[in-house]
């Protein structure tokens, strides 16, 4: 089943320590961090934020946990740098960024907003759900330009690891499809 990202409750840096622990100068609320990350675009697909892409797995007051989309995705480092820069620019240099591999990222974690952003950007969003994944992208993609399902796969590997190259037979436009993963 689709598993939605879960946001951990804000963790006080003082929890578990003595009551008079020195707090960082700026301790953001979880919502603050989330709002900042919602404006950090994916470097390869700038129409979608790192939040909507589902690669931010956990946000707390002192750390952000992210996960790569594909093992060899060259954007992984750029994403971390973008998040770092955005946090620093908002005075949250104390918030650490950690990377986790498990559980592996799935396109089911792309939000509904993220799917619409992809479509508007010209990329057919991936089908949702475990059943769709088991079909291994065999189902016809919907053309993001004219909406037709009369489409064909040209190449399962596209311009980035996460996309396949398709063509619409109705409007004749080639388009990228986000692979169900």
């Amino acid at each position, binding site marked *: 089943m689709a598993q939605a990202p879960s946001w951990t409750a804000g963790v006080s840096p003082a929890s578990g320590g003595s009551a008079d622990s020195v707090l960082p100068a700026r301790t953001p609320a979880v919502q603050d961090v989330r709002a900042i990350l919602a404006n950090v675009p994916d470097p390869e697909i700038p129409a979608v934020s790192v939040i909507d892409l589902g690669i931010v797995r956990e946000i707390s007051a002192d750390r952000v946990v992210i996960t790569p989309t594909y093992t060899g995705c060259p954007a992984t480092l750029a994403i971390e740098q973008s998040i770092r820069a955005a946090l620093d620019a908002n005075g949250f240099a104390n918030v650490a960024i950690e990377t986790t591999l498990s559980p592996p990222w799935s396109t089911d974690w792309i939000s509904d907003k993220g799917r619409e952003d992809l479509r508007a950007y010209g990329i057919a969003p991936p089908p949702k759900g475990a059943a769709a994944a088991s079909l291994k992208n065999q189902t016809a993609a919907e053309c993001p330009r004219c909406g037709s399902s009369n489409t064909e796969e040209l190449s399962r*590997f596209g311009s980035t690891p996460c996309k396949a190259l398709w063509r619409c037979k109705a409007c004749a436009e080639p388009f990228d499809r986000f692979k169900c993963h």
Partner: protein
Amino acid sequence: MDAIATYALRLGDDSLILGQRLSEWCGHAPVIEVDLSLANVALDQIGQATHFLNLAGELEGKGRDGDALAFRRDVMDFTNCLLVEQPNGDFAQTIARQLLFSHYQELLFTALTGSKNATIAAIAAKAVKETSYHATLASDWVIRLGDGTNESKSRMIAGLDWMWRFADELFVMDDIDAAAMTAGVGVDKAALRAAWDARIDAVLAEATLSRPAPRRATTGGRNGRHSEHLGHLLSDMQFLQRAYPGATW
């Protein structure tokens, strides 16, 4: 390095060398879709290698990271199987290598998702989704070339014939493998053979091809005994660190 670190090193070396080999196709593939496909497979392999080699360095505990292991070892220190270092040849030979290796890697990673080493299990769980794409890509092309023209068929047969002698090494269990398996970290690779045979035979049947004639297996990669091809590959891959040791950017 102890057995577990060596186990991680072998996994990383397989991915690294195949990733480097495949990247040689970049800009040279028959059509742009194939160029992108091979580059994507190469990226996945190099991503896996980064994780496995970083782990091997951590387990070794001597301050070496994945980059140090990739760029500052010489031929005899590499533990990859001989299959992945074989030259690309023509496109059919490259695809033959990919067929044999990707089906093995998908079966191996599926099994390794149960590894007691949490990092190996996590890398495998992530990578297996990508590896299934590689296996499908290779299978599709073997079928297309094998069941194609006389020219494509003869090239596919020649490619498989070249690579076939290196397949047995994939399933060899030596002391390192046995120790890793006993520790619950590694898996019984020999036990993957039956499923691999069934997959390869199914692809070959659809491609109207026969298995190449059996021949004596060529092995030794796991212990650093490589073909001459690996040295040339490393001289290219490691050029920068050899010419400018410690260079960073």
